[in-house]
């Protein structure tokens, strides 16, 4: 059987979900018998080829996140929201009830202890922030959701092996966590 092609990315996440993927430990050797990694922080490939599975960590907090998410949706047959932030915005979304400009002012300009002349960064290379952080299902269609902050290595393993074997992923009580 040809290997399935898998792409992964971290949007507005902390890379915890990717670290958790590495927590499958020696099972990673089994995994790479079954899949090859395409665009991913693990390969440093910068753009998606057509893939079977896309794993998205993090919600969307800026314009670049939206572009990357759309690239994944365009290229991946099955798109998975991996972890709490992708599923419901998570910790970054806890800024959503605050005004964006007020936050930036406070962090970069008025907070005590900043270097003299500190300003809100405005380098044109920096992606523009969205007013609110959104979970990814508000932007593109998502096929599967794997909650958890992060989902445990065991949960990711169970989920991926189900998916790769063509079964509907099922976690069961032990592996189902929102925290």
């Amino acid at each position, binding site marked *: 059987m040809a290997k399935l092609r898998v792409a992964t990315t971290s949007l507005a996440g902390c890379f915890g979900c990717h670290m958790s993927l590495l927590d499958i430990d020696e099972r990673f050797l089994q995994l790479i018998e079954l899949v090859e990694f395409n665009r991913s922080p693990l390969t440093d490939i910068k753009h998606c080829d057509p893939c079977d599975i896309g794993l998205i960590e993090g919600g969307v907090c800026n314009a670049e996140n939206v572009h990357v998410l759309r690239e994944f949706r365009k290229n991946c047959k099955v798109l998975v929201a991996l972890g*709490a932030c992708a599923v419901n915005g998570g910790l970054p*979304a806890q800024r959503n*009830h605050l005004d964006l400009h007020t936050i930036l002012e406070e962090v970069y300009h008025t907070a005590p202890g900043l270097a003299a002349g500190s300003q809100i960064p405005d380098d044109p290379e920096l992606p523009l922030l969205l007013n609110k952080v959104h979970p990814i*299902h508000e932007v593109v269609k998502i096929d599967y959701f794997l909650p958890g902050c992060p989902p445990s290595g065991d949960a990711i393993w169970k989920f991926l092996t189900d998916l790769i074997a063509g079964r509907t992923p099922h976690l069961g009580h032990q592996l189902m966590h*929102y925290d």
Partner: protein
Amino acid sequence: MSDDSQTGTFLLDDEEIPFTRGQTVIQAARAAGKYIPHLCWHPDFKAHGSCKLCTIKANGRLGAACTLEAQDGMAVENRTPELDDKRRTLLQLLFVEGNHFCPSCEKSGNCVLQATAYDLGMMTPHFDMFYPDRPVDASHPDMLLDFNRCILCELCVQASRDVDGKNVFALSGRGIQSHLIVNAESRRLADTDFSATDRAASICPVGVILKKRVGFAIPIGERTYDAAPISQVDIAKENT
């Protein structure tokens, strides 16, 4: 059952459940070790019938198991895919209407809403998030109110009024505007006679009414519903 008989049986997902006259479907089911998902109902309080999570089909008609009295010979559907789908949708609506960031919630692992969502296999809130703005009330020396997680079950209202005799809480507003308020002119908990030993201080099924300075005493992963699913814990409680 004849008119003067005090007991009877009904079928719950094809299993025979005994009941005594006046028992609701959920009371009889629970006494027989059968879990019917529920949020606003608590065995120690009068049924409130608002969350509809306990919706069952009795003789083909939808009803709330916490308010519907058991009747002899009734056929009740409970854990069918159709009803669990509806229940999951109700949960998803609750999750998007509030701010439920479980990883940073002290109630995580002990939370009835979360545990029920686990039991029903809710993998996603599905709908667009509301992200409402609901400031916390940390004014009280011993207790914290985080309104972001309120599911409007009114258990705190009942407990404070009927057990503590204090009337600290009330619901205000209608529909999507309804919200929990504190009965003080300032609307602050510190300006009430609320105490950490009140029944209302330990009744909240979610992470709204929290004791200060005991946070994370039991680590995440070792809490009530980490050990066993709510369908088992809820029944075990009945039998202790």
